[in-house]
């Protein structure tokens, strides 16, 4: 498949809007051809299943699995919100394939234009479907730090996704970087419907963004919340606890977690999340205080959490490793 070539542009730590738009134009140009050439038969596609969780808000439950050829990287929750004039898509799944299923679902629900594609953070299972929306020429919106984080990891994400899914499920998948980054709480208007975007300090990653529909007080919280699926740490475990406690002061009516049911109440999700993170912090701190090593921590931290989460064996030891590397600097 054709590797996306991005011309050399001076990069100074942040993405200006102008350079981002220029990049987008280049990206769109580069993508137009391969995108239109991809033919997929949309028979029975689980990725295409969305439920209306609130008035005009649709959400999809991603599987609690690792990416593979059967699931096409459909392993994270995605959704869309329909306003009077336009539509915002929130996260796009782990491949062009899942992104396309999402786009088809939007088209089945409304003819209004897709004006925004919002990513909750830079992880591949949330952003690799972005390319399916380039024909809509939306504004790709994210936390201001997402462009940098995704840019640094993009090549590896593509390689890993292709390896996990295989050539066919991966086909058409490209990195589409955000065209604008949110530094401060920002409101987007879909026509008679406002979305409030709040960038968070480092927690699950260093670029977590919460999207709240003001009309229904429904929040897309991305991977700040995992439910059923074990949380995965790629930011700061202490920061994550802080952010969760802060959201808990004014909890949303309804949330769409990054992994878990398509929608759920805040309290049911918050309790187990906090318990897991606190358990890891407490156990790892104890091992560090005793002069223990990362290996000691991997062997002994948080085993009681094992029966409570899907994919525990796949991610827990890695979480402990990351928590150790963070907490030993305390």
């Amino acid at each position: 498949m054709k590797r996306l070539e991005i011309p050399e542009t001076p990069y100074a730590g942040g993405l200006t809007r102008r350079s981002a738009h220029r990049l987008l134009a280049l990206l769109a140009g580069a993508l137009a051809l391969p995108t239109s050439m991809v033919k997929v038969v949309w028979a029975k596609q689980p990725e295409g299943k969305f439920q209306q969780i609130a008035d005009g808000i649709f959400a999809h439950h991603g599987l609690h699995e690792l990416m593979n050829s059967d699931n096409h990287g459909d392993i994270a929750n995605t959704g869309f919100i329909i306003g009077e004039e336009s539509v915002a898509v929130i996260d796009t799944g782990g491949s062009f394939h899942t992104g396309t299923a999402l786009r088809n679902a939007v088209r089945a629900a409304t003819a209004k234009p897709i004006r925004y594609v919002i990513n909750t953070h830079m992880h591949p299972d949330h952003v690799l479907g972005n390319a399916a929306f380039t024909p809509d020429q939306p504004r790709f919106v994210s936390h201001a730090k997402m462009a940098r984080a995704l840019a640094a990891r993009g090549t590896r994400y593509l390689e890993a996704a292709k390896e996990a899914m295989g050539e066919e499920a991966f086909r058409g998948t490209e990195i589409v970087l955000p065209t604008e980054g949110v530094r401060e709480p920002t409101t987007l208007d879909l026509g008679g419907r406002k979305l409030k975007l709040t960038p968070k300090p480092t927690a699950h990653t260093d670029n977590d963004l919460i999207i709240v529909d003001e009309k229904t007080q429904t929040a897309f919280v991305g991977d700040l919340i995992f439910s059923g699926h074990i949380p995965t740490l790629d930011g700061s475990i202490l920061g994550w606890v802080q952010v969760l406690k802060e959201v808990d002061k004014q909890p949303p009516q309804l949330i769409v977690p990054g992994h878990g049911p398509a929608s759920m109440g805040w309290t049911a999700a918050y309790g187990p999340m906090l318990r897991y993170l606190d358990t890891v912090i407490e156990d790892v701190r104890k091992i560090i205080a005793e002069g223990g090593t990362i290996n000691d921590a991997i062997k002994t931290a948080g085993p009681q959490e094992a029966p409570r989460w899907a994919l525990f064996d796949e991610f827990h030891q890695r979480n402990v490793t990351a928590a150790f590397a963070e907490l030993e600097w305390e």
Partner: protein
Amino acid sequence: MKAIGKQTGSVIAGVFAAILAMQAAPALADEDAELWQSIREDVFDEQIPIAEESDKLTLEAPYRAQDAAIVPISVTIPADIAPRVRKLTLLVEKNPAPVVAAFTFGEAAGLGERKLSTRVRVDMYSNIRAVIELDDGSLHMRTKYVKAAGGCSAPALKDMDAALANIGKLKIRSLRRAPQRSSSTAEAQVMVRHPNYSGMQMNQLTGLYIPAKYVERIEVRKGDKVVFDMEGGISLSEDPNIRFTYARGVDGPLSVIAKDTDGKTFTTTAPVKGSS
């Protein structure tokens, strides 16, 4: 860095060998042996044989690593050998820069059992090797195979701003161990905040690789005596972290001087066990 050219050459040669001999099972083993041979010639004196699976040291490494960018490895040298060890070299055979670090021990390294642990990047499934050089010039090695991939090109940096804001921050920790009355050594840990950019992490916004910038030297002293002097490369994990044993009997605090490839020097001192 000299090893890179030879290594690439031998990998390419190895690929051809594999294509030519599709059914020959030993092809892969031959390729690995050839790779090690070329690294060995670059790093160690060709005239001196290396004792493999030596009983003069042990090497611990996880068979399957949780995070390829932070693979913990640990070397132990028994008390009867420790005083004779001049140098310890750690290698990740298949990394683009196979030599992780070389530690030259000094007077304050102590006479008891010597332990040294650190964290390394592993770019693909590879042998990890620890080689010690004794005072008679002889070389002794232990090897472990580790399954991990992507450690050199993956930006493990979870919070990029924090990583750059804290660059050069140093910490020395004195570590508690099970009390051994007879032990003449104590254990401590030195930690350096540094992204240790490998030069292989690409910024997709620009299509450019982030230039290599890493800690190339860490010297630890007890009082005015050297515990070890390390020369490191890009295969050392970000936030270089070394646990080590040192002589209790030497007066003075532990001090560390770290230097990166930009010529920046970072230093700190901490009173620890055995200080007077």
